[in-house]
């Protein structure tokens, strides 16, 4: 029986690990290498790293940090942030990551995506989709760490991503991210039912119940966690932890 993957999603700001709330106010969490050592000891299913300012600042991924991470981790690794050409993706795979996470590049460099997917396989390409509800309650897809509105509808966009070569979708609710208030079940279910590739739900996890709910009601194939794995509790200090081993069979 395939286990539902529960994946810490860790935010990098170049060499620091940070955590945001609704994509804003990044707070310092600690050194990424020390943190991943703990997650390796805890035998987490997988790790996702997202550099939240690489694309904004037009900066390449910090390969030195990624290399150190890969030396410490014996689980699947994904990285996103600042990848818009084939060579950069190759560098990341070479280090020992097996997935690259792309967001803006799906809008601006579809040919690059096609090239990565053809060379490394679709399973190596994770499409990151950041979604926010507008004033009228409609979902819209954002890029550049939530600062650019593409005006696209997430369900239609995710169907396109699958055709463009994505092997997996990381769906993040900007409104829920860092709030501990639960995932956006409706959004997750709508997208999951529309695509044939695995969907990772992200944004809002505050309890184990939220995690089981998003899998059962939201039909998520996997779950990404942020605050809950780096803080003791909401509003409290930093504590790297993984409360979810064997939570889902």
């Amino acid at each position, binding site marked *: *029986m*395939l*286990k*539902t*993957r529960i994946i810490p999603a860790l935010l990098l700001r170049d060499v620091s690990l940070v955590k945001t709330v609704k994509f804003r106010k990044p707070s310092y969490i600690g050194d990424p290498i020390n943190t991943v050592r703990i997650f*390796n000891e805890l*035998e987490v*299913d*997988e790790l996702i790293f997202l550099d939240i300012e690489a694309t904004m600042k037009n900066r390449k991924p910090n390969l030195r940090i990624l290399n150190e991470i*890969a*030396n410490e981790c*014996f*689980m*699947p*690794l994904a990285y996103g942030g600042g990848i818009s050409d084939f060579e950069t993706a190759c560098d990341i*795979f*070479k*280090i*020992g990551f*097996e997935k690259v996470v792309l967001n803006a590049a799906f809008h601006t460099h579809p040919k690059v995506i096609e090239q990565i997917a*053809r*060379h*490394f*396989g*679709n*399973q*190596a390409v994770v499409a990151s989709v950041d979604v926010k509800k507008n004033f009228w309650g409609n979902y819209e897809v954002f890029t550049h760490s939530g600062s650019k509105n593409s005006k696209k509808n997430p369900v239609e966009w995710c169907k396109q991503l699958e055709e463009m070569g994505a*092997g*997996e979708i990381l769906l993040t609710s900007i409104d829920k991210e860092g709030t501990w208030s639960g995932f956006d079940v409706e959004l997750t279910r709508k997208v999951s039912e529309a695509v*044939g*590739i*695995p969907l990772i739900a992200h944004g809002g996890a505050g309890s184990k119940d939220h995690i089981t709910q998003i899998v059962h009601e939201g039909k998520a*194939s*996997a779950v990404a966690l942020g605050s809950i794995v780096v803080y003791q509790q909401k509003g409290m200090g930093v504590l790297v932890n993984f409360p979810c081993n064997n939570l889902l069979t």
Partner: protein
Amino acid sequence: MITIVNYGMGNLGSVFNMFKRIGVEAQIVDRPEDLLSARKILLPGVGAFDNAMKRINEGGFFEVLNNKALVEKVPVLGICLGMQLLTRGSEEGTLPGLGWIPADTIRFPYQNGLKVPHMGWNLVHPSSPSLITLNLPEDPKFYFVHSYKVHVDNESDSILKCHYGIDFDAAVQHDNIFGAQFHPEKSHKYGMRLLENFARI
């Protein structure tokens, strides 16, 4: 010493890292002539079947690999796509595989809304004894990512089975040729044990 073949496709970094962690000497080679002295070969692989076979053929690896595997009979371990390459061929491509294991690589059937690729941690259970699966930790599970699966002709060549919609061969052995569909280098202590076992053969 384990020789990891770099024919241009695969997670060489992570395989090398895990051997380093478990204290096994390993080297990555990217020229066929560097394989001549190899005593044990690891064939990694990620990506498309034809792409990989093309690189093996055009890179001049085919003959030396064949000689190592079938004449010298050094232990060979294929991982993920590397295991699929050991078969006669794959539904993913048109080029023949290495054909060292009597088996075919076929697409996962679409059924019951199961998503393909089969991606994530899944439990395995032994189907035939093998040196590489000795003393695996309890409830062994491994990390899988694949859209195609290997089907062996002879059940006795299947050493680990896994279930995803249907039972399939998660690891195989035919004489000195071993294959693992999952990624041991990404499977914590379970993968470490399997690679340790391979190093001890």
